[in-house]
């Protein structure tokens, strides 16, 4: 593992704009070149994601811990800790509200792990190797800047930032697009050489972690038919890593504010805004005393 600050022979620091941009179906991913000397020195990689309203950032985990700052917008996130129970459970009532077509008692009610709300100004910590997803349930885009600490002890791989997706067919966020297209083309050729014509293939040509496995293995592991298992590989999905939720808002199980709580929260929010405005005025008046 590279020692931290091992590559810090810097003569001059430069403020940098993102160097790579990927347009996804429901958002944009911009990243700064992780090979830049400054980032190599600090042992970090940085990415900015813009998620449009009703956009879903696909579930993923990475080789380094991340700290995410919500520049604007609001939404929800799910962090999938292995072995933790699914503590958010759908009630019989909820089930019929959400899915009137599926009222049969034989259907399994949905349950999943805790969901957390976020809004502008929040920092969110994602441990290394722990999968998570984000969804914009607001009316404005969510802009989130994420720093990956690639020299953190939790990362035993090299310093390259790596995202492992559990769904979809995403691009590598840290690789320039030209290079990605070239490598995708090369990979498709290799794939066809190894497995014959498309259509006969067992393994997906996508980019998520399931696409590298035989569909047979997946069918066994999930106890489903091969066709359903193959859907995990998201072969012909061109939406990239931020996808649009079709139709209405994403229906997940989550606690909601009661009307009184909602009003109380809005009152508090207005008070906070008034306080910060008066702080700004005060600081403008006393600006001369600042060092």
């Amino acid at each position, binding site marked *: 593992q590279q020692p931290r600050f091992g590559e810090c022979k810097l003569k001059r620091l430069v403020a940098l704009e993102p160097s790579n941009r990927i347009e996804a179906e429901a958002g944009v991913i911009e990243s700064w070149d992780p090979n830049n000397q400054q980032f190599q020195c600090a042992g970090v990689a940085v990415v900015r994601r813009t998620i449009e309203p009703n956009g*879903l950032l*696909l*579930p993923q985990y*990475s*080789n380094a811990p991340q700290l995410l700052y919500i520049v604007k917008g609001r939404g929800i996130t*799910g962090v*999938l800790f*292995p*072995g933790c129970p*699914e503590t*958010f459970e759908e009630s019989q009532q909820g089930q019929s509200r959400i*899915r009137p077509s*599926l009222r049969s008692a034989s259907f*399994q009610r*949905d349950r*999943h*792990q805790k969901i957390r709300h976020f809004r502008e100004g929040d920092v969110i910590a994602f441990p*290394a*190797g*722990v999968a998570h*997803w984000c*969804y914009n349930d607001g009316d404005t885009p969510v802009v989130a800047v994420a720093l990956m600490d690639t020299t953190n002890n*939790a*990362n*035993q*791989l090299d310093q390259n930032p790596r995202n*492992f*997706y*559990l*769904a*979809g067919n995403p691009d*590598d966020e840290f690789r320039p697009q030209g290079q990605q297209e070239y490598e995708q083309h090369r*990979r498709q050729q290799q794939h066809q050489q190894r497995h014959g014509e498309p259509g006969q293939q067992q*393994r*997906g040509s*996508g*980019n*998520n*972690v*399931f696409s*590298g*496995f035989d569909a*047979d*293995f997946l*069918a*066994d*592991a*999930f*106890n*489903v038919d091969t066709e*359903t298992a193959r*859907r995990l590989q*998201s072969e012909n*999905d061109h939406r990239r890593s931020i*996808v649009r*939720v079709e139709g209405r808002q*994403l*229906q*997940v*199980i989550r606690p909601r504010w009661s009307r009184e709580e909602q009003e109380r929260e809005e009152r508090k929010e207005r008070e906070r805004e008034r306080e910060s405005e008066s702080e700004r005025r005060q600081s403008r008046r006393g600006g001369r005393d600042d060092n």
Partner: protein
Amino acid sequence: GLEETICTLRLRENIGDPSRADIYTEEAGRISTANSHTLPVLRWLQLSAERGALYSDALYVPHWNLNAHSVVYALRGRAEVQVVDNFGQTVFDDELREGQLLTIPQNFAVVKRARNEGFEWVSFKTNENAMVSPLAGRTSAIRALPEEVLANALQIPREDARRLKFNRQESTLVRSRPSSSRSSR
């Protein structure tokens, strides 16, 4: 005080004894783990170990090692093993046989299926409390996702999403379908 502490440190833990198994599925196999909780000296070494046995045609569900590399030494039998990197590329797709060693880097996804004669292995892991995150089964990341996130992420009907979430009740080791019903590779 050294003779009371360091000199008498417990340095040994048997993980080969089937009755000591931490995970056991009657039809599929067993796994035992030695980590810093069961053998405290491993806290110093920052290492842990896993001893596994897969019965004939059983499957260790796809999973990734959250916080450690894993070096697998095959003790007995044979298994089909596939390892996948962050680009979804298969970086290993071969048989692992008795006496062979395979390195699985941290976070890379892996699946093992025993051949007819079964498969036994020991994995050395580079963390005192190495953790595994399964991709299928009761404790998997897929199961922890809301149904509708899965349906939208994979562009599938909710019924299919539900099947992917709930059809497999076991957590780690599962019985594989008979090889005759699997399509030929």
